[in-house]
């Protein structure tokens, strides 16, 4: 995938995602404002303000974008690159985008999310401590490609620290379905 192709995908993905975000929160603001009217006394003021101001701002932005895109030449749409750094698409370079939205990126993200989901499923089944040991053992060996010795040391040290935290600070861990067995 060439840089320009990658860039185009990244920008359009970012704009699409932001539009979805806007539509979702427009719905949320409408809901907060409408439901807020039914609350008693002063507890309804802030929800109503949030609903009204939120809807106004999202609408204003939609109008501004529509007005801007009618006036602006094609290819100069504005896009937010990262946390507070805005650049024009025309001047955009690959490094300006906080994250490259390439297929490889999504594959890596998907892979890590699968690991996290597996870890949570293990916590539900085995409880936190045992699930952590199993997760670390498999992740460090299979994904991080650690050696057997380093993996075992990593797991033992982490589980040991969890035990120390638990006994010193009285910290509880989530129990699993099979924890009591």
């Amino acid at each position, binding site marked *: 995938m060439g840089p320009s192709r990658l860039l185009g995908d990244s920008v359009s993905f970012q704009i699409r995602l932001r539009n979805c975000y806007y539509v979702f929160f427009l719905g949320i603001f409408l809901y907060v404002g409408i439901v807020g009217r039914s609350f008693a006394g*002063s507890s309804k003021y802030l929800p109503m303000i949030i609903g009204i101001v939120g809807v106004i701002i999202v609408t204003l932005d939609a109008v501004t974008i529509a007005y801007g895109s009618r006036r602006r030449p094609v290819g100069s749409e504005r*896009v*937010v690159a990262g946390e507070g*750094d*805005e650049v024009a698409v025309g001047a955009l370079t690959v490094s300006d985008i906080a994250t490259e939205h390439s297929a490889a990126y999504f594959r890596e993200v998907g892979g890590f999310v699968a690991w996290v989901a597996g870890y949570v499923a293990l916590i539900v089944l085995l409880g*936190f401590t045992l699930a952590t040991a199993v997760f670390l053992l498999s992740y460090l060996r299979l994904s991080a490609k650690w050696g057997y010795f380093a993996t075992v040391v990593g797991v033992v040290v982490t589980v040991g620290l969890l035990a120390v935290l638990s006994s010193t600070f009285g910290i509880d861990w989530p129990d699993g379905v099979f924890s009591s067995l």
Partner: protein
Amino acid sequence: MLESLGLALELVMNPVHLRWLLLGVGVGLIIGIIPGLGGTVGMAILLPFIFGMDPLSGIAMLVGMAAITQTSDTFPSVLLGVPGSSGSQATIMDGYPLAQRGEAGRALNAAFMVSAIGGVIGAIALLGIIFIARPIVLAFGPPELFMFAMLALSIVGTLTKGALFLGLVSGITGLAIGIVGLAPQVGELRFTFGSLYLMDGFSIAVLSLGLFALPEIVDLVAHNRAIADTSVQVSGGRREAMKDVWRNKALVVRTAAIGTGIGMLPGVGGSVVDWIAYGATVRTSRGDNTFGKGDIRGVIGPESANNAKEGGSLIPTLLFGIPGSGTTAMLIGGLIMLGLQPGQNMITTNLHITMAVVWTLVIANVVGALTCMLLIKRVIRISLIPARSLAPFLLVVFLVGAYQTTRNWGDIVAFFVFGLLGWVMKQAGVPRPPLLIGFVIATTVERYLHISVGFYGWSWITKPLVLVLLIVILFILFGGQIRNLREARRLQRSGGDRGAV
């Protein structure tokens, strides 16, 4: 007041508090080294653990951590050319070229020395402003404080240059999340959908861990980047760095003053202070202009400013309860968890706590800088670990932190839901700090609104200072838009005139 200052020093020097301060410094050191994990993530990790701590120990740990991340984030900026946090972006401009020239040791040592000096100047400024601000702060009533909170939110919204509405939507989303649970004034349940977990609302620790920490880890793993480059030469340079700092002592003080001043503006600090300081350094420096090619002044200026900023940003945070950044938003959450209410009482009944914060800043900055200087070689080893090897351990820490909030499965579910929201916001380019700030000030805003309406009815809107603040807010929100529209019309008109000719 001097009595409080002495008492606070005595309290801070207590070995128990010092231990927690050093723990915070240790955590901040590691967090700062990992690119993307700034003070906000550090706060998110520490917040769940301060439940039940005595206020001074808790504050020592949080402030110590926040102060040191501004120092240790220089490691990746100089060694890899990747900012450790938003406050060290400008350091890359000359720090990285210096490292490539084999002068990383000189750049790092100089950065740590001026970080300590800048941090101390910021703390002194905080102290000085407490003396001056006391009568002013005490003169504000609930309507003015409500408008101040709104002002903070609108300034935060403008952080997203040219995409004002994105920031505002983010801030209002934070307010909406902040009102979930039992309404404090009338005891009515709002947006709980029959869930017992939601009755107390969301915890700031879970929100911030999900919103900031999880998306960063996902991105780090996706890029599987080692934190630093193995080829960088880091030894030596301490003596030369001392000479550099001495030669540029005026620059250190000047940029520290800039950092403190900008830090005081709610929402503006973090991501811009180092660039403003860098710009001022370039403009005011005499002699050979080698900026961008490895000029030590390009490291000294921003590094002095970004540590001084911490003292400045604590002024609106402690005195008005208005956070200036994601990190200070979480600090407010931490203060509330410790049983302290930021605002006027921080300069009356809890003055000794505010003074303790000043001392903590001083100690954390000095200890942090010395630690960084001593650990330069060892820290490099940590920074060579690939992200994929760090991620599983960080995930365990995040889950431990999230679950400690209420020890309910709801915490873990909320952590992942906010993680998804944070990831979507990051990918969509929607700024996340305004959401956190909106969430934190939701309770304050509602309290001031309730008191204002209760005392004055809706006529509080006509109070003179309220009107002034309203005009300022409108100017901040729409001034830029109107100017842009005028500019566009003017350009269109001049284009039309040329076409006619």
